[in-house]
């Protein structure tokens, strides 16, 4: 049962930002696929800012090249030929979120602001060095996605700010992908996810990007791993060494967790598979 609250439905960004400045206790609804579940299960809210009608926060993915709108739904992202061609890892991740109903409602901006450790869109956004424009009534600022993710369900987005656009840098000459571990194929939370981009040839890993979700309090770019093997000659020993360091990084970020018993060996297997030196022995 939903609690009783005041619902604001602005039609423009200016209006939305004014309400955000005026109202103290307010939650933003961009798709509602997480928020409504919380409200249904007893979370109290005094004001709800429903931004789904704000036209200037919503445009077709690809119509302003490299900039996606915060109100783009997962379905729009995974239905866009532009995204499929230029940001295939994001395309794949968004196509796996929840179910068709969730993908039709849930938005990329909402996914970012909710900052779940298991958000499917965040690891791919990280490999494209996503940059957010955060607007408030007083002005706007540009922030790297990686820098505003502060903790599980916690971001550096201020109370009176909205994400007004998301800028992505396409990777050219890379092969990209997104893999995730779930108990079933749809309507399932990621228990581990990996977004990757690799520019390589038979001998060399020229440049790589790797971001990991659902393993640490916030999804993260595995920068140490990228540096360790990027620009290097392909070598199994090198990869294994980089994996050991990566696992240490994970343990530093997340501490010891019982789920690591199986998640860490799975992460290693997935990365070995992605980097072409898989070990499929039993």
């Amino acid at each position, binding site marked *: 049962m939903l609690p009783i609250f005041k619902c604001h439905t602005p039609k423009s960004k200016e209006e939305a930002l004014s309400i955000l400045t005026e109202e103290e206790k307010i939650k933003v609804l961009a798709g509602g696929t997480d928020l409504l579940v919380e409200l249904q299960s007893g979370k109290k809210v005094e004001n709800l800012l429903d931004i789904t009608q704000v036209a200037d926060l919503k445009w077709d993915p690809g119509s302003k090249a490299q900039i996606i709108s915060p109100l783009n739904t997962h379905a729009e992202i995974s239905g866009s030929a532009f995204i499929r061609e230029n940001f295939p890892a994001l395309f794949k991740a968004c196509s796996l979120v929840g179910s068709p109903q969730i993908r039709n409602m849930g938005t990329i901006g909402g996914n970012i602001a909710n900052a779940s450790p298991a958000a499917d869109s965040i690891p791919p956004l990280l490999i494209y060095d996503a940059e957010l424009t955060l607007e408030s009534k007083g002005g706007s600022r540009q922030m790297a996605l990686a820098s505003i993710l502060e903790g599980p369900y916690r971001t550096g987005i201020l109370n009176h700010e909205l994400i007004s656009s998301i800028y992505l840098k396409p990777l050219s000459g890379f092969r990209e992908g997104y893999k995730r571990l779930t*108990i*079933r194929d*749809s*309507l399932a939370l990621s228990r581990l996810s990996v977004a990757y981009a690799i520019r390589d040839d038979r001998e060399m890993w020229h440049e790589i990007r790797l971001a990991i979700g659902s393993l640490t309090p916030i999804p993260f770019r595995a920068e140490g791993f990228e540096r360790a093997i990027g620009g290097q000659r392909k070598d199994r020993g090198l990869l294994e060494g980089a994996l050991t360091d990566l696992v240490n990084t994970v343990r530093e970020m997340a501490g010891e967790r019982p789920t690591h018993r199986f998640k860490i060996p799975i992460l290693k*297997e997935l990365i*070995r598979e992605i980097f072409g030196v898989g070990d499929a022995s039993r």
Partner: protein
Amino acid sequence: MPVGKPIERLDALEKVLGAAKFGADIKREGMLYGVVVRSQKAHARIHHIDTSQAQMIPGVVKILSFRDIPGKNRFGVLRKDQPYLSEGYVRFLGDPILLVLAESERAAREAAASIRITYGELEGIFGPSSSALSNVKIHEDGNLLCQKKVIRGDIQKGFSTSDLVVENTYQTQFLDHAFLECEAGVGFLDELGRIVIISSTQNVHYKRKEVATLLALPEEKIRVIQATTGGGFGGKLDMTVEGYVALAVYHTKRPVMIRYTRSESMLANTKRHPLTISYKTGATKDGRLTAIQVRVVGDTGAYASYGEVVAQRAAVHASGPYEVPNVYVESLMYYTNNPPCGAMRGFGIPQMAFAHESQMDEIARLLGIDPLQIRLINGLKRGASTITGQRLTHSVGYIDTLKAIEPFWRDRRKGDWEGYGLGSMYYGIGNTGVPNPSSCYLTLREDGKIGFHLGACEIGQGSDTVLLQILLQTLSVGPEGVELIRADTDLSKDAGSTSASRQTYITGKAVQLAGEALKGYLEEKGFYRGRSLKEIYLEAKEEGRILFEGFFDPPTTPLDPQGQGIPYATYAFATHMTKVEIEPATMRCRVKKVIAAHDVGRAVNPVNIRGQIYGGIAMGIGLALMEEFVPGKTLNLNNYYVATIKDMPEVETILIEDPEPTGPYGAKGVGEPALIPQAASIVNAIRDATGMRILKLPCNFERLWLQRLSGGT
């Protein structure tokens, strides 16, 4: 010929169009809403209840406690040990304490949430082994609910003549039915002042009886009608909302609705019994079973519900569909402070099949015999005896299910990380060794139609359609000549519950017999020579013969203390062959293909049977790979994974018709058999793919990985 034809389901169109009225869709003028306040402790005495805040919430009409119950505050299908409202003591997390009634659902829920209860916590018991050893008594008579045995031959001799003995312990989990429609119902007073309840249920006559006892009213003062029901799987056999609705109407004289949210449903509803099955099998080197020794220990949770039935069925079906000369089975069921476990599709046999089918494959592997061959060697055939000493004389299609699978089995080609597995089962149709009759009647009516008064609940499985087909076949009339009046205690006789795969077989036979009685009369009156039913009705009325009844109670005998007897009149048989694929990096198992062969006696509606089989496979995938209810932790469907359409494999069904002479046109049942062998065939396929023998369900990627890390097999 209506029997054997895949006619369209009677309920298909209205459900597809969203027009069907389920329990929660019913509206009555001036309706109150009820919410049950439940225990937040698993085992405790209630020290104090403070409803002062709730009483002040506008719209709150009444808050009822056990003191407001005029009759008996106990229900239960076999043993009446479960209170509707707690008498100061709670036995599980979710035990009902109070019933709040208000003008709106919101007010009722707010009031329920505002009630403060202080508890004195007691030591809780959360597993059968601690239940057996503990001094803490959950019920006065002790913690052991029951002990069932099946003893045959000489178990010592059996093992001493074995060339091979395989011993394993298998463990299964709590499951929630997760039916699409949560429990719901409304109640009101009719013009005669009787209490009418319309609810989502699998039985109406049983519920009328319980409500009468609760309110200390004669049964005639209660009418129970089934609303369109969105799934049951055994979870709507016990009292759900009916008692509370009735109590609320009794006190307020107003219409009342109670509908559970999903989290309430998961808290309140019975679960599938987790069983620990210690299984020892002996065999000769040519693959013949010589002995089985099985100990089943189950957790029935806080109340008995169907615990005894599950213990009994588990014992009787312990061998699987095989001839075993020497048998010692002991099946125990303990009370704990876990949620009550009740009926769920298969009554313990999906769990047992996981164990006996794993054993069969292990024996085959160790003896170097093909898994299909070992089943052919030991399989029940006509003239063979079950472990309860019942000689099977007819409708024993087990070997036919194996033969039907055989070409696919021989043709299987295995790639890397792929595997194939077999799972077989037999299943006694109807209740175990007790009378379980069904009645049905037909009326001739003024409007020239035949009234088809059916007490059987349609819960989405297709009984309305199948039973109508049987009637049309018997009477040689078209569907336009018949009006179905279903599951209303005023307008139908007791057909027993929709459970134990019994409606097609038992009620189907009652329908056929009622049809034959009417047909004889119609023949006599010239209907088949062209006289109209309107005309015949007038004559029948004169003669006082407008009602024609059918009654069937399958011939069974009770089991003796050694578990010997004829517990069922007939059995269904099935074999599933399953192909799985394992993702090597993650150990995620996906089911790719299932071939399901079922001996159904006679396929009354082949498409409907296929639908049942698809559903059974989906549920079997859940049982094997993903579903797990953890008391206190699983609060909603977000962390209770049932299979979705994306987890469904390609399915091929093969229907075998070895007719059952006592059944309607030879039919048996398929509702539970559809599920029973599926999980077993999946774990055997995983063994084939990975070399790992699974002993604990569900085997999700986490368990498979941990097993792989600990060295595999």
